[in-house]
Every structure is written in C-alpha cells, then in structure tokens.
C-alpha cells in the first residue's frame, strides 16, 4: 500500500493517507492538515458534517501506527484558522502521541507560537536536514531537495473513451516533492506535470506511480 522511493540515497515511503516517511531519520512528514477548518465553518454558520473532525485524528493515528515514527514534522497549515475548540482535541492527541512533533509554519498557522510551545511543539520557518529542506511554501535552494506542501496538488488523467479523472497526488520534480493535503475537507489544485516530473496519485488506499 505504500510506495518506496530513494532520493539522494535516502529512502522515503509514500503513504496513501498523504504522509511521507523518511526511514533513515524515522521522520514522518505530513502537510496541510487544516485542523479546525470544520469548526471554523460551523462557527460561521456553515453546517459541515461534524464527524469529519474526528476522521482527521483517526487518519493521523493510522499513519503513526503504520510507521511508528520517532519524529513527526507538519509542513505547515496544521490549523486552518484562529483558535477554536478543535484545539482541545488536538491537545489530547498530542498528549497521547509518543513521537516528537515539530511544525514548519504555513500561511494558515496564525495561532500564537506559545500555544504550540506549551505542548512541546517546536516551530520553524524552514528546516534543513542533511541535503533536505523542509518548508511549507515550495522553495528550491541550491544543493537541497525540498519537501513542501501548500499547493494541495492534484492531477488530471485522461483515458480512452473520453474518460477524465482528477486525483490528489505527490508531485515530484527534480529537486522537490510537494505533498498532498492530508486533511479531509481540504480541496486541491490541479497541476500540469512536465515530462521529467514524477507523479504518485493517491487512490483507494494505494499510491500509484504514473
């Protein structure tokens, strides 16, 4: 169900939930969870199904149970908006999760850093590990391979008989890997791959390389 690939002699496992596991570092990368989005909408009078809130945590737990990472790094947009009661659920989740947690801040992360620090979560603008650069916004720097989020990438596929499909994906260019949005109820943005790009679509609990 996962898809392994090697980048600069390190091994990475792509999970259909939308996470990437870096084996050598036992580091799990997750991007654009947008926690609190459902609560935010509901607070403003849009009745998005409440059950979605729990689904995000269930998916996170499944992912962690699968890889048992030493370290989890969120690549930004962990929270969708200002503080709401989903933060309490997040606090509970952090408490019962054994892994070390870091956040590379994204444009949506407007909650006070102290709130995260109180939970033992460190916040960075960007994080460089070996030859890898972890950011929220795509950022290509010489000598680094970039892992990032923000885009919520998806691709459109065409088939015989005028078939069309749009699917969320991991989008890899020469020096960059954009992660799909992890959260339920997050939406996506279609990218057009170039020849040298590698696309890994997420479908029915499988990662399929195109």
């Amino acid at each position, binding site marked *: 169900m996962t898809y392994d690939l090697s980048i600069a002699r390190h091994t990475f496992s792509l999970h259909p939930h939308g996470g990437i596991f870096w084996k050598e570092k036992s580091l799990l990368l997750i991007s654009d969870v947008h926690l609190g989005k459902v*609560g935010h909408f509901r607070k403003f009078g849009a009745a998005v199904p409440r059950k979605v809130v729990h689904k995000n945590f269930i998916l996170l737990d499944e992912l962690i149970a699968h890889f048992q990472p030493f370290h989890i790094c969120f690549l930004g947009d962990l929270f969708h908006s200002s503080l709401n009661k989903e933060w309490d659920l997040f606090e509970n989740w952090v408490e019962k999760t054994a892994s070390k947690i870091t956040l590379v801040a994204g444009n949506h992360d407007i909650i006070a850093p102290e709130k995260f620090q109180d939970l033992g979560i460190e916040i960075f603008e960007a994080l460089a590990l070996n030859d890898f650069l972890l950011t929220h916004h795509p950022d290509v720097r010489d000598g680094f391979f970039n892992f990032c989020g923000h885009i919520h990438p998806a691709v459109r596929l065409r088939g*015989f008989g005028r078939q069309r499909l749009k699917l969320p994906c991991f989008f890899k260019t020469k020096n960059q890997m954009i992660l799909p949005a992890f959260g339920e109820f997050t939406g996506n943005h279609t990218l057009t791959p170039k020849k040298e790009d590698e696309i890994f679509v997420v479908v029915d609990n499988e990662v*399929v390389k195109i």
Partner: protein
Amino acid sequence: MNRQQLFEIANSWFQNQGWKPHAFQKETWTAFLHGKHGLLNAPTGSGKTYALWFPIVLNYIKNNPNYPTKHRKGLKAVWITPLRALSQEIKQSAERIVEDLELPMTVGIRTGDTSTTERARQRNLLPDLLITTPESLQLLLASKDYANKFKKCSAIVVDEWHELLGTKRGIQMELALSRLKTVCSHLRIWGISATIGNLEQAREVLLGPTSSEMKNSVLVKANLKKKIKVSSIIPKHMETFPWRGHLGLHLLDDVIPIIKKSKTTLLFTNTRSQCEIWFQKILERYPEFAGEMAMHHGSVNKETRIWVENAIRNESLKAVVCTSSLDLGVDFAPVETVIQIGGPKGVARFLQRAGRSGHQPGKTSVIYFLPTHAIELIEASALQVAVKENAVEDRLPYLNSYDVLLQYLTTLAVSDGFYPHEIYPEINGTFCYQGITEEEWQWLLNFLVMGSQSLKSYDEYKKVEVASDGKFEVNNKGIAMRHRFQIGTIVGDASLSVHYQKGGYIGSIEEYFVSKLNPGDVFVFAGRNLEFIRIRGMKVQVRNSTKRTNKVPAWAGGRLSFSSQMSELLRLELYKASTAQNQSKELIALEHIFDKQREESIVPSPDEFLIETFKSRDGYHHIFYPFEGRAVHEAMSSLLSYRIGLLSPITCSLAFNDYGFEMLSDKSIDIQAVLDNNLFSTDYMLSDLQKSLNSNEMARRKFRDIAVISGMVFTGYPEKGIKMKHLQSSSQLLFDVFRDYEPENLLFQQAFTETFEHQLEEGRLRIALERIATQEIVWRPCQKATPFSFPLITDRLREKLSNEKLADRIKRMTKILMK
C-alpha cells in the same frame, strides 16, 4: 364610490389614450374589486400591466374617498417581476395612471440596482406602489419590523409567474406569500402568466392548494388569438450543410435579406456566447450595419440594455441580436420579424418569441427558424405542427426544497425572529411544502440551531439561536450580514464584473471563464474585443484590443428538454421520413442526409428502435435512438448504463439530445447481451434508476445550488468586492464529506430527489420503455459515424458514469499516458 363609477374612471382613461379596454382587462378589474385572487393568463405586450394596476388604484380610491386631502403614506401594493430589467417599464405604466388620475401615490423600485440612498429612504418609508424582484422581497422580509411595513399592503402581483414557477425563485415567492397572507390585513394575490401546459396548477402553486385564497380565486384568460407564421430558412446547398454545430453561421448570408426587408428584426440565440459571435460575424461581413445593429443579453450592462430597448422603440435599429433577455417585457411595436437561431427547446418559448413581432392588432407574427445543423430541420418541421396545435410545455413546480426553506427561516430569524408553531402552518399551506412532516420540520429546526441533530460540547456551531420564550432569532451581526448577501445568489454562478482599467463597467462574466484566461488573452464580450489584464478584488480588468480572437465567454445556460407532446411531434415527423409520405419541405431538403444515413444504417420507422455501434479514436460508441426528448434520454442512459454495469463493470461517458443518447466507453459493450437480458425492461425501473444516480454525477451538480441556497457555501458578494475567502469551499468538497459522513442529511438527500423528479421525469421514462418493448430492435454495427449520430458524438457536455474500481481504471489510463 360604486363599481360603476370606478369603472368609469378607468374607461375614460382608456378613451383618452385612444384605446378600448380588452374583455380580459375588464374581467380582471371586476374580479379584483370583488375581492378575488387569481391568475391572469395573458401574453407579453397585451396590456396586462393595466389589467392589474388599474384595479389596485381603483380599490385605493374606493377605500380612501378623501384621498386628495387625506393620503396615508406607506406601502399599498407590490409588483413582483422576475427580471429587474423590466422594472422601469412597469414603473412607467403605473406612473402614467397615477399622474393622469392625479393621485397622491408614489411609485418606487427596489432591486439589486437600487442605489443605497434610495434604499435607505425606503427603509423609513416604502413607496405606495413598490416594484421589486423575488430576492429583494426576501430582503425586505429580512429587515426589522417588516410586518408593520406590509400591514396595509392590499395587493401583490406576481408578473411572469410562468418564469418563476418551476424555479427556486418561485419557491421564494410561495414562502413570501405564505407570510404576507398573515401579515397583511386585506391582501389580494394575483399572478400573470403566459400560456403554459399547467395553468391550473400554476394558480394552485401561487395561492396555496387548499387555501381560502385558492377557493376565492379565478383564472382569467386573455384569449387573444394571434396568427403566427413559421418559416424555415432552408440551406441552398444541403450537401455542404454541416451535420453538427450550434452556431448556424453557415446561413448568415441568408439572414441579411430578411433583415433588410423589415423595419426591425430580432435575432434570438440560445446562449450569450452565440449572441456575441453572431453580432461579431454579421458586422464583420456586413460592415454597413454598424450603428444600426445592437446586442442585448443578460450580462451586458444595464445602461446599454436600456439604450438598446429604447432604440428598438425609436425604430433606430435595423436588427438586434439577443438572448432570452428580450423574451419578456413590454411591447416593441416596430419589431416586424423574428429569427430564431437554433432549436428554441420549447414551444412556449418559441411562441413567446414569435409574439415579439407584429404587435399591432390583426397583424401576423412572423418567425423564421434558422437551423444550426441539418438534423435540426426535422425540429423546424415539428415546430410548425406544434405551433398549430399550441403544444406548450408544463412548468414543473418543486416539492420539498429544504434548501430554500432553510434560507427563508433564517431570513425570518434575521429580521424579527419567528415562533415555529406560528410559521409551520403557513409553510404547510404552500404547494412546495404541503407534504412536509413534523419530523422533517424538527430536523430543519435542529439543523438551524445546532447544525446537526444533536448537541456536542466541543461544537461551536452558530447560526440561529432560541430565546427563552421559544423565539428563533439570529443575534450575530456577521451571520445576519452574510445571510443577506446570500439571498440574492439563488440563481447563477459566481460571477465577476468586467471593468476597464480606467473604470467603466462593461458587464459580468462567469468566474469559470475568467479562470482560463492568461493576462494578454483577448476575448469577445459585449461586442468588443477585450484584452484581459488582471483580476483585482472581484473585478476583471480589461482594455480594448484590436486583436482578433475566437474566445467567447460561455455562460451556463439552461438546457431545456422538450415536452412529451413536442417529443412526440418530433418523433412522428422523423417517422414520416421513413415512409416518404406527407413530407414537409424541410424533410424533402434533408433527403440527402437520409440517403447518407441509409448507407450503413436505417432511418427508423415507427415500429423500429435503432441502435448503432462503431469505434473511433475516441473509444467505442454505442448510440440509441428512442426519440423521446432530452430528459427521458438522460434518464434512460443512466438506467441502461447502470444495468449494463451489472453484467460487467464499465466506465462510460454519456451524451444525449432530443433524438437519442450515446454511451462512449473505452471497452466495447456487448449489445447482444443487452438485448438478451432485456435491459430495457420496466421491472425494477425505479430502484435501478435510483441506484444509477450514485454512480454518476448528476446529483453532485444539483447539490451545488443546494449548498449555496442553504447557506453552506459562501459566494461572497462580488459586486461589492467583499470576499469571504476563509469561508470558501467548493460544493464538490462538501458533497464528498456529506456522502462519506452524513448521507442521511436532508440537504444531501434533496440533491438526489431533485435529480430524480426534475431532471429525469420518471413517468415519461416508463412510457418510453413500454413503447420500446413494442418495437423491433434494429442493431447496426457501423464502420463510421452516421449523420444521426453526429450531433451526439460531438457533444462535449457529458455525464460520467462508472462502477469500476478506481484503481483499475487508473491502471488502464496510465498505460495510455505512458506510450
């Protein structure tokens, strides 16, 4: 003053104009003054406005004999028009009466175009006679103390009721009326409708099926017989006339002599983009028309539209290319000729358009039908019969639209609040919600207050709150504001306004189109070539360009389906082709096409049901020809592909028109197995059809409007530049989360019911299948596309359907991408 004296006032006014009141006008006056409610069936331009403005005014005189000295200010009557463009005309006719009779009454308009100062003035005091739209009426109900403002209102007239019936704006009207019946002390409700198939039902929907108003009501028919002459423009060179296409530009040269011959010609197109293209092309090829020709459609700005309408009246225009934006509204006397480009998709609409010409009494209305492709000539031929038999369609009213009801309840909560036990009987009395159950009602109230059916501690859902005395109200200003914005968006897509960089509003355009433009791209809009500069706020900035382009914005126009009557006429017309008897000149002109059709296939006779199959580089085409009209084909294709999918999983895209439907797949379908398994059977039809909806996307599309109307998706307020980006989500995304997490939600369910009742017309499908059962099935495997199949296989607007595993499909698709 007695009735005789009152009538005298009206009669002498008519005399002073040099007119004589029609029988239907007098009949309406009498009924109104007798305190009756009713529906007036009269066509556009027949003097229907005077049929109702007069009794309203006379009634005022009767009840206020001292009006010259003692005029009480405040609202007396409301006139509802579906198109705000028409409000000026209606105001003028009201003012004319008020001025001539020297009444101290004021006439005012309140629509989306009304200035803020005017609106502020109306907040304190509404005019005596108010002209407004269904949305603006809802907005009035969303304002504080509305009950007092409406208390003395004695009449509500809903103009062009046929246009509202069968739309969600029509439900807004039903709901508003249900409230005003209680609020106003002596209210009369009147509707005005063009001829439709279900006039009696139209009256029921307007007044409430079991209401006392319904019992005390009349149906007045104008019965103005109008001679209509239909002639088709038949291509001179049928051999080169295209098999498909929707623009009809091949016949442009044939249109010119018609335009030249008559005083003013209206050219009706079906879409705004088609309108833009025709306008452009005529000017390109016949520059001498510059200055004598204009364009009119709903996205052109208001000033230009008014200018065009006045220019038609002044006879300063030779031709106007327009869309349904000119279907309604007052008389344009100078119009002598009407040309309909492409199938009008409805007899009522065709008649209405024809009626645009030859307005003087006794004159014949002339309408030319211009086919855009060869097969449409069959339609032209059938239309002539339909006009003769007056085979107009029904407008099907909605039932149980929870989205509109939620919107309305929020409206009431925003203004003065409401008590459910007072509102429930009112709602239950409307046509739309006559079947609503106590459980559903409770569900809706829970949804408004809790955003779900049970309370959870971490939930911060906030919309409507319940006060200690049980009153439902909105206390949060932000929610009230967003709700008011949302009321106007019951129709249409997210639209952006188009401006010149230096300022100057040109019109509005759908976001979808703009999203495909890159800076520097040139597109045609409002008859100009415009270069796209950027989007700022919710405004599209452009500058004039001299570059030529073929980019024309597309607006999602309604794709109407023929009535069952019209479909039958069409079918009979086509069957005539197989017998070579009683052929119209349109059919004779098509002989060449029929010959081509017979090369590999057949022209079916009444007892034959044709299926064609062939392969092209697009995939495997399977084409079925029931000739039952678009709606039935949509349903039948959905049903059939679902049943085929039971034999073995398939993925296919569906296309349909009024003649048949196509299933395009990447694998060949075993037609013999379809026939052997009797897949056209009516057994289990209903449940199969229901199940088929899960595997295609029709319901998903319906959900879009539902999500907006019920206030779950915020569109912002483009014209005011107010975005609510942090609250924007796509209805697609919402549909997915509802499907996965809350499929029992009534709004989610509604998407399916609406598809089912409004799009698929289950009853007609059954009859169609029964007819097919009596026919001999002729299956023709062909080498290439036949003329009949051509319009279908080239249709790009398709339904998708699949019951295959996604992963399997992708693996097949990948192989294609890899090569």
